[in-house]
């Protein structure tokens, strides 16, 4: 490996073997950590295809799709998954619309009020949402929104707005104002400029915000757990918990199968989103702001 660079050999001769060794150590330790992180997940994968699964991780004596067949009923999977799609989809749509509108003045006009709003938003991104679930419950009782699907959507929207506004503003800042000025000269209003010039230019950014909010709403357990009661309104996150409570001691394989069905969409979406923005590291960067 080091022989490939004979020209700089004089400088590298001392460093190169050490660097090769450190590269190997880094790779080996990464492999060890990766295996440690994978071990708990092995159970999920193996149990889902095991006809007599327990909490033990083991290679199934025979592979079966029975666990999937057993959970693929309207009651267990289709209705909760459709509810999750509706809950997360509506939340992400509303959040993206509201944060596009809010980000426009924040990104384009400088004023003390906007700056204050932005700091309030930043403050909101940090607040522990679990801390307000008890008072949110009381407010929902007061507003008569308890067990309301749309009420839950609105709360999820509000709780994802701070982060979404922040991300959307950052993406919008990257669109040069000069492009809109042309539209303004043509007599377009600010809203028309936003719709026809800015939004088309920040489509990847909007997609990232959408996916980010969708993933959070899809995976959220605590909010629907506190705010929704009716079985027919439950998203997959809470229905799986009931399912586990009822059959926990018997149906490990089905639990694993359902967990996989419920997790696959978010894994696919995550991969798509990180492709869109050029690697998952960039995604974390944009979240960080």
């Amino acid at each position, binding site marked *: 490996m080091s022989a490939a660079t004979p020209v700089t050999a004089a400088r590298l001769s001392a460093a190169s073997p050490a660097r090769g060794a450190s590269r190997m150590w880094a*790779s080996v330790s990464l492999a060890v950590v990766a295996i440690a992180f994978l071990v708990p997940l092995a*159970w999920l994968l193996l149990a889902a295809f095991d006809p007599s699964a327990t909490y033990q991780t083991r290679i199934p004596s025979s592979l079966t799709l029975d666990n999937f067949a057993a959970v693929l009923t309207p009651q267990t999977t289709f209705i909760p998954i459709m509810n999750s799609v509706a809950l997360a989809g509506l939340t992400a749509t509303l959040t993206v*619309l509201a944060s596009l509108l809010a980000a426009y003045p924040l990104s384009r*006009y400088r004023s003390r009020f906007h700056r204050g709003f932005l700091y309030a938003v930043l403050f909101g991104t940090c607040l*522990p949402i679990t801390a307000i679930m008890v008072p949110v419950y009381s407010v929902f009782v007061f507003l008569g929104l308890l067990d309301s699907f749309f009420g839950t959507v609105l709360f999820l929207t509000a709780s994802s*707005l701070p982060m979404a506004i922040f991300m959307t503003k950052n993406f919008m800042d990257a669109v040069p104002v000069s492009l809109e000025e042309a539209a303004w000269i043509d007599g377009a209003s600010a809203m028309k400029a936003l719709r026809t010039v800015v939004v088309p230019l920040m489509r990847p950014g909007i997609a990232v915000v959408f996916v980010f909010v969708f993933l959070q709403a899809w995976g959220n357990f605590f909010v629907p757990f506190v705010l929704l009661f009716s079985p027919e309104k439950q998203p997959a996150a809470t229905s799986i918990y009931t399912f586990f409570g009822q059959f926990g001691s018997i149906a490990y394989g089905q639990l694993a199968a359902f967990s996989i069905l419920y997790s696959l969409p978010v894994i696919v979406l995550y991969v798509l989103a990180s492709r869109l923005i050029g690697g998952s590291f960039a995604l974390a*960067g944009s979240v960080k702001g």
Partner: protein
Amino acid sequence: MTRSTTAGSPPPSRRRTGSTTVVRALVRGGPLLPAAILLAVFLIVPILWAFVGSFTNATLTGVTATSPEWVGGANYERLFADPDFSLSLWLTVVFTVASAVIGQNVLGFAIAFAMTRAHRRMAAIGGGVIVLAWVLPEIVAAFVAYAFFSRDGTLNQLLGVVGLAGDNWLFIAPMATIILANVWRGTAFSMLIYRAALAEVPPELIEAAEIDGANAWQRLMRVTLPVLRGTIATTLMLITLQTLSVFTLIYVMTAGGPGNASSTLPVFAYQEAFRFGSVAYGTAIATVMLIIGAVFSLGYIAVLRRAEADR
């Protein structure tokens, strides 16, 4: 608007500019309204409600559910005398420090650092595996962690292979299990941020230190870490806040038990409000959490502002 009407008799020209400024501000700020209303109704009202509700005797059911009475500071008196609360506060600190400040932060940095040196493919695979635990819905991650630590779970199987006796870890060491589970689930976040930040450290700095004869450890301690100071501070704040509000993982794995042995503040507030029906008491706990969260949020914003000023 109020200012222009109460400001005595300003010159007419000034009044006109004043009101056009207000109109312009309203037109420009108009798009903020949908977001502002949602934030006000669903975040600000509950926060104010938390402060007010913690001074009442609201319950989940019964007469006081619909018409609670004002009880002054009674909930807080009870709170500060309640040994379960001090235990819960202490457990929250232990959970946050061990799993976020030490676990996720140090491990996340170590992994990100190793990724910059490892073989490209290994770095990609390792990063992908660690992100997987983070992307999973929290309830699935909680089930997986529960299965891993349960009496006949994977951990005891592995211990059996090396000849050690297993135990019911969720029962005898609940804090250790939820801390490890949270490290497993959350390390990806700090890893991703540190990976992005490490890529931005100017290579000239490292090379200069190398030429000056600094070894790898010295380069890390004296060059890389100081450059990343701001990133480390913001990451620490963010993962602390995230860890403070972990509920599902703990609730599914131990439900705060056995007894109250792993009942951090979010679980404690939930149990008091919804299991024992004392909504007001749960609200008082929520208020304490909000204050702790607010302190960390303000710290986070202060760090960000300083970083912005430095730039």
